[in-house]
């Protein structure tokens, strides 16, 4: 007893201590769990922006941006023949009111083309107050979820203020929050009452042991009375007739009802934004130094534009490695997904128009490890991929290349 007392006392103290420890809730959507080669070489997001991150219930917020569908799509990942641009939320704390791909509104899924460029916009409306970590992301059929950059949204106000009214083709205004609810409850109660009546008809009399004994004694005829049979006949005929009548009444009430819509939207890519041919980048070699957490990319740049260009950024899997020598990049310092000094070049001189130069780019930051991108070297498909941004400071232009190469690990 004494031993048990000590055990319980210790358990109680442990629980008390643990209950005083700070608790933190999960704040991510498992985006780092997906293999890096999928995150790097499928949907390559860029220029993603939210209209605001603080708003109230019933107010709208939009997220817009661009993405390139990598040419070097992994062979082990099914092609994006059915893709759905989604928003990761903890339930419908927001509703999606509009969604655009290349300026076209769309509601279903769409086939994306590898090598294609797209811009998107999703309009959302606050439904439940709270602070939520939200990402735009793509559901790719048979492949999984590829996350876009996440932000924290703060929704204020009262949940009761939310309203969502839409108009049917016939002009009827309906409240989506309550539409069909009372009708559904009514029919469930109606059929539930009939079921309860039938059950009570039998439950009111002695059941299991008594009936088992009577059946065992050959008194089956006493267990089912003529009145039981009459009621059963009424139910057997009446219920199907009632079902068919109610069905006909509903069919007449909604003569223009249509089946659920299941078509695939068809939206073509934009004219090339990435790998547009003005500044070509060919990746010659990629080496990842494990101890330095640095990726060295050897690329051959062919500048066919009218102005000198400089390499300003390498972005992969929503992590932005910036060249501090190029100042025209609009990212805010202090963000977790931006490495402001993460990119350096062996030759910082601008690449002149018409010049072809082989450049060694060192992309070095702890983000390779913290974002679990270094797991690439242990993957079956160990090719790195991402977007390389080149800037023409004079003309104010930006050129983007989607690059990829097999990675050679360096352990020393």
């Amino acid at each position, binding site marked *: 007893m004494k031993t048990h007392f000590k055990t319980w006392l210790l358990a109680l103290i442990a629980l008390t201590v643990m209950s005083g420890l700070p608790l933190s809730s999960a704040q991510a959507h498992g985006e780092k769990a997906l293999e890096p080669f999928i995150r790097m070489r499928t949907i390559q997001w860029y220029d993603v922006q939210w209209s605001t991150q603080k708003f109230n219930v019933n107010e709208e917020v939009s997220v817009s941006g661009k993405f390139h569908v990598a040419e070097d799509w992994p062979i082990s990942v099914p092609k994006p023949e059915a893709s759905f641009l989604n928003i990761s939320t903890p339930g419908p704390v927001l509703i999606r009111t509009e*969604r655009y791909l290349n300026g076209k509104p769309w509601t279903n899924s769409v086939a994306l083309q590898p090598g294609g460029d797209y811009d998107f916009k999703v309009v959302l409306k606050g439904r439940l107050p709270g602070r939520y970590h939200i990402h735009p992301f793509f559901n790719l059929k048979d492949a999984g979820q590829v996350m876009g950059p996440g932000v924290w949204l703060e929704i204020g106000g009262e949940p009761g203020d939310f309203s969502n009214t839409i108009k049917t083709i*016939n002009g009827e205004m309906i409240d989506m929050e309550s539409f069909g609810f009372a009708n559904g409850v009514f029919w469930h109660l109606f059929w539930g009452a009939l079921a*309860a009546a039938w059950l009570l008809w*039998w*439950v009111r009399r002695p059941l*299991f042991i008594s009936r088992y*004994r009577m*059946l065992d004694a050959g008194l089956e005829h006493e267990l089912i009375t003529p009145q039981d049979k009459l009621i059963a006949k009424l139910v057997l005929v009446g*219920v199907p007739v009632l079902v068919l009548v109610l069905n006909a009444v509903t069919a007449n009430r909604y003569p223009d009802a249509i089946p*659920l819509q299941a078509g695939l939207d068809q939206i073509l890519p934009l004219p090339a934004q990435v790998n547009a041919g003005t500044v070509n980048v060919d990746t010659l070699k990629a080496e990842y130094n494990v101890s330095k957490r640095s990726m060295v990319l050897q690329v051959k740049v062919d500048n066919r534009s009218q102005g000198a260009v400089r390499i300003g950024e390498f972005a992969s899997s929503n992590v932005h490695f910036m060249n501090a020598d190029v100042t025209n990049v609009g990212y805010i310092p202090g963000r977790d997904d931006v490495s402001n000094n993460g990119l350096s070049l062996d030759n910082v001189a601008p690449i002149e128009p018409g010049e072809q130069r082989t450049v060694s780019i060192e992309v070095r930051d702890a983000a390779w490890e913290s974002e679990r991108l270094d797991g690439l070297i242990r993957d079956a498909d160990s090719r790195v991929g991402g977007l390389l941004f080149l800037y023409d400071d004079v003309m104010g232009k930006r050129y983007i290349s989607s690059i990829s190469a097999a990675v050679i690990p360096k352990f020393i």
Partner: protein
Amino acid sequence: MSAQIPISTFKPYQGEKARLARAYDYLILVLALFLFIGSFHLHFALTVGDWDFWVDWKDRQWWPLVTPLIGITFPAAVQAVLWDKFRLPLGATLCVAALLIGTWVTRVFAYHYWNYFPINMVLPATMIPGALVLDTLLMLTNSLTVTSIFGGAAFALLFYPTNWPIFGMFHQAVEVANSQLTVADLFGFQYIRTGMPEYLRIIERGTLRTYGQYATPLSAFCSALLCSLMYPLWWHIGKWFASTRYLTKI
């Protein structure tokens, strides 16, 4: 039967014995209700799943095919026990009612209060009329064959018209994004489900749309045929469980 009692010597329970037998009835009823709420609901959620969860999965083809086919399983098994051993024609109705209790509890607490979905987006379907027909037909015919063929078929054929008064209104057309959607589709678009992209819906797919655009009757009759086969299969599963091998004296 394990212990045949001659009719001439049969004496109904009276007094304390009768009261105990009645208490036992209630005990079994309550246990059976919770057992079927839990087990049938779990079975249904894991098999019919999304077709019953979401309003935008309830299509003309798969929903009336899959739901009765899975829905007839427990009713058949429980009927085998209750009819064969007790001549109680309430197995199907009891199962379906228990399923609905479990379903409603889940929809209200898990889907609405926990995950914020409006309940009208996750209204369950009902199979009570089919269950009543199944129970009464078994009682009146006392035949596994007749109940399998006609009861199984009725269970499937009644499913869609039973639920149309609940879900027909969700099939009104709405103009959204330069295209037409049903109100049900719009629920799926507006109320965000992170793990449920539109393409994941198994709806309106297959080669059943043979006669013009009338897909539902074909699905329903296909389901009727399958239910007629599923019913005796699960009847025998129920019968296998309903052993009175250890009951020597009662």
